């Protein structure tokens, strides 16, 4: 520690160089933080704990196919199942087709909604009001902020794959992990839509405990195995993962980008350190003549690189917050808007960024440090810089 001042002075020996190197480290760390937050959002990993006891049942062929509503009673009888809500993804158009006006629209059974979605909260009177009016809906807090809806407002949704339009009145606002959806009565859909009257897209159900989920999924799958419409039951997380898996090898792509980015910044920082070490051959020869050992010189130069990288790391982590907010704002205008709401900077991501900056420092400082340690005193002193 007593050499810290020496290291610090050397880091900022050339102000403009130190600033430029820091700036590139900061930018790269911002990128790393943003990319790993993106990955986490795609893996649906952002701090959801309660969803572990939930199961989603869909048609075995794929999501585009519907299942008989009559399955509900059979599923409800399976031991361990607390409540079952049939839900249909309406996918309607609100205002216009632009992606920023897209949000999840789900029909559900309001009587069991609060049980199956027990990680959501809604004021009791609002829940009652919603349950009692067939043409009403509730919306997540985020949507309320986005559109400025007030209780009693009406919205119109134009159907896309379900050929009907909805006219709904806002009766409540819920808060919870995913506040980007609205929920409305499935009776409203059933009564107005002929043909799929007795069918549903998915069953969303709550089980007694996460440990019971695998057995219940098996029981449901076996129950309808030989019917006209076989089903696939799975934990909620796995259901959500389907959507990101469908985006193909995006995760691999993002990972390889992050690695390349890291490698690039190591090159840049290593180059800076090498230049700085080359210019200081005389200085190093002098301290060696004063009695510093080779190993100490190595540690000193290496520490410089690490100090520089850590400074960049701290600034980069701090700087990544506004960048992430900007990215979320931009992403809301694309078809992947639904992932935008899941993006959060987690503690794990910040630790990754911190580790990355240490790695940058060590990797970039290693070669210049060894070279500096190898300088022979006589040659170093003879050289006129």
């Amino acid at each position: 520690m007593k050499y810290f001042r020496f290291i610090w002075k050397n880091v900022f020996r050339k102000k403009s160089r130190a600033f430029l190197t820091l700036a590139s480290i900061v930018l790269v760390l911002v990128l790393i933080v943003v990319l790993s937050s993106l990955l986490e959002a795609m893996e649906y990993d952002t701090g959801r704990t309660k969803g572990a006891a939930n199961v989603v049942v869909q048609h075995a062929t794929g999501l585009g196919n519907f299942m008989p509503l009559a399955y509900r009673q059979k599923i409800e009888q399976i031991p361990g199942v607390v409540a079952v809500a049939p839900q249909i993804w309406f996918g309607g158009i609100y205002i216009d087709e632009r992606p920023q006006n897209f949000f999840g629209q789900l029909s559900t059974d309001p009587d069991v909604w609060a049980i199956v979605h027990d990680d959501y909260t809604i004021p009791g009177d609002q829940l009652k009001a919603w349950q009692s009016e067939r043409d009403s809906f509730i919306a997540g807090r985020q949507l309320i902020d986005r559109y400025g809806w007030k209780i009693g407002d009406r919205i119109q949704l134009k159907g896309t794959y379900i050929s009907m339009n909805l006219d709904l009145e806002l009766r409540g606002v819920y808060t919870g992990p995913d506040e980007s959806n609205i929920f409305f009565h499935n009776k409203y859909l059933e009564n107005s839509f002929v043909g799929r009257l007795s069918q549903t897209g998915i069953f969303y159900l709550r089980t007694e405990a996460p440990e019971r989920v695998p057995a219940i999924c098996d029981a449901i799958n076996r129950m309808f195995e030989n019917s006209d419409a076989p089903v696939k039951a799975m934990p909620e997380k796995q259901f959500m993962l389907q959507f990101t898996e469908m985006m193909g090898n995006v995760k691999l792509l993002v990972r390889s980008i992050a690695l390349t980015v890291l490698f690039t910044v190591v090159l840049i920082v290593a180059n800076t350190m090498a230049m700085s070490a080359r210019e200081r051959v005389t200085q190093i020869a002098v301290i060696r003549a004063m009695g510093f050992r080779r190993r100490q010189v190595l540690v000193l130069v290496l520490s410089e690189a690490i100090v520089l990288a850590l400074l960049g790391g701290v600034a980069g982590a701090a700087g990544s917050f506004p960048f992430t907010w900007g990215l979320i704002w931009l992403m809301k205008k694309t078809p992947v808007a639904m992932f935008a709401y899941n993006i959060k900077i987690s503690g794990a991501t910040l630790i990754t960024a911190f580790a990355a900056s240490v790695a940058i420092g060590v990797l970039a400082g290693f070669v210049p440090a060894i070279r500096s340690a190898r300088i022979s005193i006589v040659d170093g002193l003879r050289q006129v810089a």
Partner: protein
Amino acid sequence: MGIPLQYNLRNLVVRKVSTGMTVLGIALVVTVFLLVMSLAEGVRKTLATAVSPLNVIVLRVGAQSDVQSYVSRDQDEAIRTLDGLARGADGQPLVSPELVVLINIPKRDGKRTNVIVRGVEPVAFTIRGDSVRLVEGRMFQTGTSEAIVSTRERQRFPSMTIGGVLKAGSERWTVVGVFDAAGSPYDSEVWADLHNVQDQAHRTTGFSSVVARASDSGARDRLVAAVQGDLCIKLEAIPENDYFSKQMGTAKPIEFLAYFVAIIMAVGASFGAMNTMYAQVSARTREIATLRALGFSRAIVLVSFVLESVALGLAGGLLGAAIALVVVRLFLTAPTGTSNFATFAEILFNFQLTPALVASGVVFSLAMGLFGGLFPAARAARLKIINVLREA
């Protein structure tokens, strides 16, 4: 008279390690940019590959794709009575009712994805002309649960070999042939017999869409207008090419990622170049002063150093483009897929590293060099001759 460019180039060569690292840094930025952009370009190219400009696809009003659409038998009959339809050798209008079903099946890596199974009648092949043709095996037989798959899909799904069985829920199709759809979106689909798909999907009351071939481009526009105006049909018609280009939004998030990463990295890499150039200027102060004393003006010194930095950028750009080219040609030859947001199925495509993209990558690297060299060059130009020459 300018300072010979050779002076700068030789200087770049003399400090091999430093130049090499800076060039490699810029090259990697260009590589990342090009690879991600060629992914987006692949999606675009697939959706822009025209099948036939005379084809019109008829969907339910409001449906964004045939997956969301429904057309009844009566509506299909009504479409057949419209004017301007091309006719086949048998004198029948070229109208193809089609039913699409999404099936969820595993890929080679074990993960599952959605694939479109399109039920068609033989007329569908006439309407697509030569752009959908059988390359291996045989055509499926009408009334059986046989199917043909595309060449791209065969590389991506283990079950898609001749004799293989596609299983999804209770639905089963046996693969008997392989087709090639000339890089169009149909290369992401499985084609089977219309009536069999209707039966297996329990959707016998109608179709997803109706594709019709117009006799000429004027007739196509009249056909589109006729469907829109017909109160009895109550459907929406769009030219098939427009239908696919409307789905271009699929490439947007990838392009966005490419620009986002590339711009941040580019700023970082030009800071690196700037460092290198600053170090050069301070190591060569006496040289610069000598040049100035010889009569080269400040402006010429400035241009000379900017050029040196641009050369650094150009070397990086060329190297980056070369790396990207090698990677795309050697390692990324297999088709890859992403979710098409309009159909909810996977769309398959190949990486497309077009000459235009390569050019944009090189321009990008020149910009990095220019930006990185400007300030150090300005410092070089401002050096005071007397002070520098007096030193040491």
